[in-house]
């Protein structure tokens, strides 16, 4: 399916205001439910976003799964998607037109929070060697978490298809699944990781970076090229506001999260959430092309990706403020 006609009818909905005068352009952004704090800040703190309401307006829709977001994107219901790196690569290799324009959150080795895979303290699982024959809980197959787990197993010289088993567990019930011994090791993103660590019952066996040593742009944003063409200025303004919010968040994490709780943007347990250690984030909104290449190689190796994507054609950092 090399033909990539979609999404193309964007001119009808997103881009109409481009030529006109002062009418702000509506940017329809599809995101998820976690790790998008800078984007949420843009909604609750207009002081950070001088262009919002002038050259563009922001309309964020939250989706549960990557597939939902991508469906909505293909159905031309969103112009920008905040979505996982793997999903972006898969989509691009399927010929879905997109341009990656900014990083949202990273998994950087040794910097910030790295998503841990944890077992019970008294489980007897102390090192990678003990993982052999155990059951690992992940929320979804072919997801980044799946990739992390498999890469970690490989790095310890085991075969990820033979030496361990996987169980699909929704993240909210991960802790219970480990405690009740339905699985041996579970994956804990924030804020679940913070809660689990606070309880004192769990210990880390390995983490996202054990196998994947690259600087991953765990979540990034891509835009519909058609939309971009018609609304270049609006996207630029949006990204400039976004980077401002990102900066603010990087510098004032605790206050920012407090605000998000206050404004009901986040429903997590306040104490844990406000004080949690966040993952590393880009300072200027840029993604790391090296990281993308590394991840693409892994995906190719796992055969989750049929053919490589020319990263130069999909990554474009030129709309970010220089």
């Amino acid at each position: 399916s090399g033909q990539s006609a979609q999404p193309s009818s964007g001119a009808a909905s997103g881009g109409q205001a481009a030529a006109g005068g002062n009418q702000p352009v509506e940017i329809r952004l599809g995101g998820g439910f976690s790790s998008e704090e800078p984007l949420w800040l843009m909604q609750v703190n207009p002081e950070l976003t001088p262009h919002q309401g002038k050259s563009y307006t922001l309309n964020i829709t939250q989706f549960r799964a990557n597939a939902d977001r991508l469906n909505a994107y293909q159905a031309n219901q969103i112009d920008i998607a905040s979505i996982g790196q793997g999903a972006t690569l898969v989509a691009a290799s399927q010929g879905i037109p997109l341009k990656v324009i900014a990083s949202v959150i990273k998994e950087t080795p040794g910097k910030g929070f790295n998503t841990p895979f944890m077992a019970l303290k008294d489980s007897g699982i102390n090192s990678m060697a003990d993982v052999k024959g155990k059951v690992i809980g992940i929320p979804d197959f072919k997801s980044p978490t799946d990739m992390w787990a498999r890469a970690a197993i490989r790095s310890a010289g085991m075969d990820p298809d033979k030496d361990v088993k996987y169980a699909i567990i929704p993240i909210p019930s991960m802790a219970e699944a480990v405690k009740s011994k339905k699985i041996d090791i579970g994956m804990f993103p924030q804020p679940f990781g913070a809660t689990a660590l606070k309880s004192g019952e769990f210990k880390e066996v390995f983490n996202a970076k054990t196998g994947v040593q690259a600087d991953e742009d765990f979540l990034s944003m891509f835009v519909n090229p058609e939309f971009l063409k018609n609304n270049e200025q609006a996207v630029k303004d949006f990204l400039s506001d976004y980077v401002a919010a990102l900066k603010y968040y990087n510098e004032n994490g605790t206050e920012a999260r407090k605000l998000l709780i206050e404004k009901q943007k986040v429903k997590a347990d306040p104490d844990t959430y406000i004080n949690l250690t966040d993952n590393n984030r880009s300072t200027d909104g840029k993604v790391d092309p090296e990281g993308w290449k590394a991840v693409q190689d892994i995906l190719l190796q796992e055969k989750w990706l049929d053919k490589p994507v020319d990263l130069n054609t999909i990554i474009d950092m030129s709309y970010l403020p220089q």
Partner: protein
Amino acid sequence: MDKRLHKIALIEVVVLLVLWQLLAMLQWIPEYLSSPAVIGKELLAMVMSGDLFSNAAASLYRSLLGFLLVAVVGIVLGIAAGYFKPIGVFFTPIVDVLNPVPKIALLPILMVWFGISDTTRVLLIFLTAFFPCFIATQDGVHGVKQVYVWAAQNMGASRIQILWKIILPAALPKIFDGLRVSLGLTFVMLFSSEMIGSSNGLGLGFMILTADMAGRTDLMFVSIFVIALLGFLFDRILLAVRARLLWWSENRG
């Protein structure tokens, strides 16, 4: 409505809550399952802040609109398909084929046409809850005694009059059986339909999702509890309407 039934319902709920609270206090069930006290506190807070009402209103609007659509289309089409053989022959294969389709799979297509909008959500509710109503109505029409129709034809009633004044009331008991199942499904689908993403962030299903994603099971239970309560309320209203309309039937309540 039956006072006795209410009392029993109340007792059942209280017993369940007490049991749950006890288990939670003894820590026999995981924290993940929260406890009535915690949920109650949260519920109260949401009532005070008014959040609950805006969310409930958004959800109710969608589910009731969906149900209304189900009732109207389901009954009209069910009667037509039950009474006019060609219409029945026409619709039976569609219904048989579409009924077992997981409607969620149709979402991408609905989305292209109707966007991420309430229209899509209402349609999703409709597509699921339609079938019980349709099937029960059609079966109800098939069960109407031939001699009633004969008597009406004999008095020169038009087709419309026969449908409206004979078939409808005679099939009504069974139609209500179907409506009750549909109403229940409407509230179940309220959750699934809001799962597809919400832009204004209002709705009980959306609340469940946000809370679940943030590990706040207490909030999740608040939403579930409110959905159940609303479902119960509308079920009772439906039963009251049923008793009203079926006053002539031997089982009117």
